[in-house]
């Protein structure tokens, strides 16, 4: 399979992500003034037809925010921030805003953008790249609507690289999942970058 990563490539990607997670967690902790814990990432290839199931799983996510990213050498993809209902109560507090300064939607979008861009900026630095982002967009915010949303999509890709990182902010009992999805053509480009790093070792 042209898109699958061998063990060395997977290890290398895992290591890059680990380092980025560490630095991102440190930066976030300083900005948010609380400890931010990132769980060990889960890296896998997903097929388009299995994507909905892998995303919604048993949990009924209530809000999903999408933010696209792109950089040099064909690196690009989409980050999805997935929230469960109970986890989105204290976001304004966490962000350092008064709750009446911004709507619930804006809180979700703001925290999503911060988590995504902080992590990806550090990741990009690891691979000597620089990423740009488009404006984050709230895809769904109602119960059960994520699977409905996905059912209406016809995917233009067959396979994607999926990296799932769970964020936990225990002080605010806040949890969310960041799911990075890299479409097939960009997987080849990521592999080129990884191979270059492996060769330099």
């Amino acid at each position: 399979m042209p898109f699958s990563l061998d063990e060395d490539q997977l290890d290398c990607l895992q290591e890059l992500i680990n380092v980025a997670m560490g630095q991102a967690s440190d930066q976030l902790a300083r900005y948010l003034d609380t400890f931010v814990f990132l769980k060990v990432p889960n890296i896998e290839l997903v097929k388009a037809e299995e994507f909905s199931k892998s995303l919604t799983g048993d949990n009924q996510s209530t809000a999903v925010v999408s933010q696209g990213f792109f950089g040099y050498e064909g690196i690009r993809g989409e980050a999805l921030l997935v929230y469960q209902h109970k986890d989105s109560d204290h976001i304004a507090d966490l962000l350092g805003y008064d709750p009446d300064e911004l709507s619930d939607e804006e809180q979700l979008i703001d925290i999503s953008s911060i988590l995504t861009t902080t992590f990806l900026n550090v990741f990009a630095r690891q691979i000597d790249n620089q990423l740009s982002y488009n404006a984050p967009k709230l895809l769904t915010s109602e119960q059960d609507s994520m699977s409905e949303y996905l059912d209406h999509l016809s995917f233009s890709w067959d396979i994607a690289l999926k990296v799932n990182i769970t964020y936990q902010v225990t002080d605010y009992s806040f949890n969310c999942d960041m799911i990075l999805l890299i479409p097939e053509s960009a997987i080849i480009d990521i592999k080129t970058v990884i191979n270059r790093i492996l060769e330099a070792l």
Partner: protein
Amino acid sequence: MSGLETYCAEITDKLNCGILLLDVDLKLVMWNQFLEVHANKKLAEIAGQSIFSIFPELPQRWFERKITSVVQLGTPSFCSWEQRHHLFELPHTRPITTGSEFMAQNCTFSPIKRNNKIEHICILIEDVTDVCYYQSMLKKTMNDLALSNRIDGLTQIFNRKHWEDCLAQEFAKARRHDHKISLIMFDLDHFKLLNDKYGHQGGDRVLIDIAENVTSMLRLGDIFGRYGGEEFAIILPETDIKGASELADRLQKSINQADIIFQKNCIKTSVSIGVAELDKAESHYESLISKADIALYKAKSSGRNQFCVYE
């Protein structure tokens, strides 16, 4: 300035979006022609002033926190019209053909580094008044469509499909919480004769008046729909057969006493009503409908203009 830099300055001035540069103390360093024109202030006169004195409408605390995230994390930040219609009170290019007073905006806050240190913040302001306008129209149309999908065009009460969806939901709710639920179904007596005598418009007037009359007698949680041509149905959540029968009695009397005026004619009409309560053993909501239907048939065969209870 080199030749290319002059080009860049000229291009930024031709862009149809605002570019604004602040230092980390939130003082204005420069902006492009778009902002100079739309804010109607000369850069030379206001450069170095605080952004909050140039745009006093900005939410200061929110804005400062937003900028802090950009500077501290070194990441861009965004603000969309969908959450905040606009940040800066600027005029726009469709003042006549949209209802919007200020330009709807998508704003992007980007950190600008010099010598590896963030010294400036660039704010990009896109005019999205058009998008905002069409999106709101689309939203309104979708809402209207969703509503018309649920409503019976003639009587303005729920149509059969939506009413039945409601029954399925209420049935499930009653089962879950072990609550009572009752059903009333009623039919206009000799409706065909009314149509023959007064024409279809007369018949329509009767249906509309009865729907209005019944609606005015219901509680907030009751769900009223047009089941078929001259057949109506009411879901009564948390109501037992006694409560349902009392309502049926009042409905039957009220409709029988009402005068329906159509083209100077006073039309008198009556209804036959069937009442049923959900049985504990029942596992389908459909059987509640057939029970109310059986009671309705009994009311008809016993001479109409009355209500019967399913037993």
